[in-house]
């Protein structure tokens, strides 16, 4: 592979692109429109109930099950209808990090000896994790935990004659940011751009260049197919960086989105376009006509466009669809970007990256193999 050939072809792509007003519009303004539109629609949306992740340390003395008082306390929280209690097995020390990495804004730790202290009127402290930035959820959780604790305190007062509150709680902030819809939307829509721009363009180019004889013309030069495809990959990598910058800028300035700008994002902005440029070329190469190429492109693109965590989080989808999402390549790109931009979960991001990198290499090699300059 000669870099001079790749560079020469890259200049042709760039000139073609910059002289096409529609392409320029889609690169520069479409990301702003997308972020703006979805940001405006969903930035005010909140969920009806708050999920409260609970670490219950108050086991029965025999180690089987939880104490009656702790279970009753959690039942009471559930009955408030604004809280959904979800028990998790995490050590209290790691709980804050766990909440951050699992995209949870509220948590509660019931300490060991909770029932014993309560029954003996010994003050006992719960730990509540909330995030002030998720103001509505924080208010709901603190209000509900405080209300249920008061109810239990009153009951204790009646029983023991002491009016001193027994159950108190300490409110702590969770170990990472609270995420709003816009925060997820940015990695989601960067993923959307990584998918749609190269896929639609390459499927179209693969079939139209063949039909128009451009590939036949290039076949008469020393340019190789891998050099040609590499220059396309490089172009879309560059475009992806531009789009991502615009989307992040728009999200942060217009909607005060929280994203961690880290070098960990860079591999996804490179490997993502690498994958979809190759896949688009592959789809366009196996199709016999431009019409069938467009059809194949759409069949591949549309499920991914909506089910990979672009507009809606995969975790909010029904279980069957969640499993389906796991076979979609874009899921790994968006999930990886979520991990590096929001949750700073590097090991999971690395896993996502490996999946998509291996996929990219396979698809690139297949595309090179199946794409011919001219029909035999």
């Amino acid at each position, binding site marked *: 592979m000669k870099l001079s050939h790749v560079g*020469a*072809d890259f*200049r042709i792509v760039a*000139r*073609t692109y910059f002289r096409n007003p529609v392409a320029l519009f889609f690169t520069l303004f479409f990301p702003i429109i997308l972020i703006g539109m979805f940001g405006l629609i969903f930035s005010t949306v909140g969920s009806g109930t708050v999920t409260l992740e609970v670490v219950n340390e108050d086991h029965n003395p025999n180690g089987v099950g939880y104490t009656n008082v702790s279970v009753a306390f959690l039942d009471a929280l559930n009955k408030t209808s604004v809280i959904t209690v979800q028990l998790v097995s995490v050590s209290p020390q790691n709980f804050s990090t766990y909440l951050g990495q699992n995209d949870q804004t509220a948590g509660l730790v019931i300490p060991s000896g909770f029932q014993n202290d309560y029954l003996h009127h010994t003050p006992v402290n719960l730990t509540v994790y909330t995030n002030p930035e998720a103001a509505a959820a924080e208010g709901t959780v603190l209000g509900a935990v405080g209300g249920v604790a008061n109810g239990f305190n009153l009951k204790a007062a009646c029983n023991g004659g002491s009016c001193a509150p027994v159950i108190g709680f300490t409110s702590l902030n969770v170990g990472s940011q609270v995420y709003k819809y816009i925060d997820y939307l940015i990695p989601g829509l960067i993923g959307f751009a990584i998918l749609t721009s190269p896929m639609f363009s390459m499927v179209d180019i693969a079939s139209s260049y063949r039909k128009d*004889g451009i590939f036949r*013309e290039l076949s*008469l030069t*020393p340019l190789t197919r891998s050099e040609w495809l590499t220059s396309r990959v490089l172009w879309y990598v560059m475009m992806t960086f531009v789009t991502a910058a615009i989307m992040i800028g728009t999200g942060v300035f217009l909607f005060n989105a929280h994203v961690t700008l880290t070098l960990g994002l860079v591999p996804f902005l490179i490997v993502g376009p690498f994958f979809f440029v190759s896949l688009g070329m592959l789809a366009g190469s196996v199709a016999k006509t431009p019409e069938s190429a467009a059809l194949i492109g759409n069949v591949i693109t549309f499920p991914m466009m909506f089910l990979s965590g672009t507009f809606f989080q995969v975790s909010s989808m029904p279980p069957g669809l969640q499993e389906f999402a796991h076979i979609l390549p874009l899921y790994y790109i968006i999930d990886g970007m979520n991990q590096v931009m929001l949750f700073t979960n590097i090991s999971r991001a690395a896993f996502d990256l490996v999946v998509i990198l291996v996929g990219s290499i396979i698809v690139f090699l297949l595309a090179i193999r199946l794409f011919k300059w001219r029909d035999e």
Partner: protein
Amino acid sequence: MLGLDPWNQGDALHRRIGVIPQDFRFFEKITPKEAIEYYRTLFHTHVDPVDLLRKVELSDKLNARYDTLSGGQKQKLGLALALTNDPEICFLDEPTTGLDPHARRAIWEVIRALKKEGRTVFLTTHYLEEAELLADRVAIIHNGRIIAAGSPLEIIQEHGQPARMTVEGSPALAAYLRMNLGSAAVEEDGKVSVTLRDKGDALKILTAIEESGLPWTSFTTTHDTLEDVFVRLVGQMDEGALKSEGAKP
């Protein structure tokens, strides 16, 4: 070709030949100058885009985008690109198809210039006039087979009909010429046509016409063109094919 195997040494061969495919197309937003710079990098040559475009008479469109060029200008760009690598052999596949007469003549000039530079030019065309004007050697291909080959003159001499002189005159003039010259003079629609067997015949015929005292006007001499030969040869072959089809039980 050029000592190389086209099937296994295609890359090496492409560097030494220039090809303009039939219905040449290029990137729509790219200018001729940029196109040549692109090819120059791919072929690792140092050709000057301005010089090359001047050679194909396209230097006035140096910075015009491909999609604004006329059909003839696009073909000229195709020619320029085919010449970027200074090829020893040029393959031009119907380079003038669909062009107006002016654009076609401009392409002919470029082809003549290529010939003068000592390059071998393979030109495929449906315009026999073009082949007759430009080619040193012509091969007429019908149904994938060469049915005649040689210089245009050789082909015409071998397969064409002899030259004829035609005057406007009466059947009586035709009869006079047949009687006095012994030649096959024929009258049809007020035109008397006499076959010319050699150069001296023309003078003899004109003298005989004058001596006849019969009225006549405007004389012309005609001879078969390559196109006439092509039409006749192909017609004969198709007729033969039809007959052999009909003869089958």
